[in-house]
């Protein structure tokens, strides 16, 4: 049972500045800071460990600057980790630390086995390409070269994410924020990745559009059984999408548990503050 994980993260750490392990001993919730008083190094993420199971949706919640985005960006190789171990079942049956793969194999892992949706559609989409072209880009990187197949798959994905297929040849720059986000989601799931990373995907959208994007994600999870890591500062999003939640502060996990337990019986003072701030 305990070896059933899809993704296993151990001790994942990202430090800006002088990266020595003892920086971790001088920072964190106990010191109410992520800045080392001695060296001035900033701990973006410190000693993060967790398991993600197949089909599971894990929430990561915390205020701005708590390290949640850094965490998923390290998993997606957007940022380099200072140290730590990440095992991912589809890569060498989980026996390799994917942080130590060659750049080529990292690219393969990222393009074939993971999907990422960023808060800002401009980070995930190329606005010089059309909506369809963006999806094609992801498929091409994963080695699908048949133009007809790419076109059909693009139409299929845009249909699934409720982006008008008629507009697939337009640049996403002309789309509304909610539509851009849905194109980004279509792109992220283009290769049927077993792991989807979602970073604050509904921030900045108005409520009815938020609802549509969340319904889409929930539908995809139910239909495709993709494992997801959902990063959000919004406990409503976390409640709706996730089974389990990690709470982060000052770059550390301060509490983890079942999502209903985190929301109804938070143990940590910071989590209690977070839950009591819920509108």
């Amino acid at each position, binding site marked *: 049972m*305990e070896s059933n994980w899809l993704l296993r993260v151990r001790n994942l750490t990202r430090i800006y500045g002088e990266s020595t392990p003892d920086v971790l001993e001088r920072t964190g919730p106990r010191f109410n800071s992520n800045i080392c008083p001695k060296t001035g190094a900033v701990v973006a993420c410190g000693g993060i460990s967790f398991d993600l199971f197949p089909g599971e949706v894990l929430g990561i919640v915390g205020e701005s600057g708590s390290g949640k985005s850094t965490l998923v960006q390290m998993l997606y190789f957007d940022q380099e980790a200072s140290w730590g171990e990440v095992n991912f079942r589809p890569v060498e049956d989980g026996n390799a630390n994917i942080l130590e793969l060659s750049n080529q194999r990292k690219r393969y892992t990222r393009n074939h086995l993971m999907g990422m949706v960023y808060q800002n559609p401009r980070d995930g989409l190329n606005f010089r390409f059309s909506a369809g072209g963006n999806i094609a880009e992801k498929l091409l990187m994963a080695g699908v070269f048949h133009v007809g197949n790419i076109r059909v798959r693009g139409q299929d994905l845009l249909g699934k994410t409720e982006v008008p297929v008629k507009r697939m040849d337009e640049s996403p720059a002309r789309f509304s924020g909610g539509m851009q986000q849905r194109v980004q989601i279509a792109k992220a799931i283009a290769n049927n990745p077993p792991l989807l990373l979602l970073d604050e995907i509904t921030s900045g959208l108005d409520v009815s559009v938020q609802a549509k994007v969340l319904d889409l994600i929930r539908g995809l999870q139910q239909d495709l059984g993709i494992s997801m890591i959902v990063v959000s500062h919004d406990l409503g999003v976390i409640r709706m999408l996730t089974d*389990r939640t990690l709470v982060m502060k000052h770059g550390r996990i301060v509490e983890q548990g079942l999502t209903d337990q985190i929301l*109804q*019986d938070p143990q940590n*003072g910071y989590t209690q503050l977070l839950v009591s701030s819920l509108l």
Partner: protein
Amino acid sequence: MGKLLEIVDLHKRFELHILNEKAIEALDQVSLQMEEGEIIGLTGKTGSGKSTLMKCIYRTYLASGGSIFFTTAQGERIDFATASEHDVLRIRKTEMTYCSQFLQVIPRVPAIDVVASTVSSRDSSIDQGRELARGIFETLTLPAELWDAYPATFSGGEQQRVNIARAIIARPRLLLVDEPTASLDLKTKDAVIDLLLGLKKGGTSIILITHDAHTLERMANRTLHLEHGRLKEIICA
């Protein structure tokens, strides 16, 4: 047969760090044993700890001390006070259902699918689930024009029946049900009781919180009474 549930010396205390470390003692020295197929009634004044006990069993609340042993269908013994989250999720998915007083559902899902998705996530298709859900809604006399509507806008009694339907369709081994008949008229109340007794016949064990004497009398094999977080007396019915 072995004990389905065995609670030993359960202690629950809420520590409110943001309110000057204020602490609230909710449960103390609670112990109970439950046989398979039993219906235990929980009574007690508002605030005596009934729902807290139920939520501790479901792990929505983390126990502060003591043990909550559950024996799975495969004979595995799991302590919900300390079990891993994945173990608890697995048991929730397959063997244990919590039916709260208040409907908590994902927004923008029609009532019929709220209920149907409960079984389709276990073992059958969504269409089979919908078929079953319709049958239960009929028994519970939930008006048909509501079946495709979103439960968030329903009245208290209507929401409650959606909640009950969800628990019925899940056919869990252990059902935790909080005030299932509170906002219902006598006829609907009896329909709910009949459905729950039907579940019991199918092998479900039930822990039932109720203030309603009629519900208690018709359902419970025995009743436990909570007072200030302690189990005070055991009345054999």
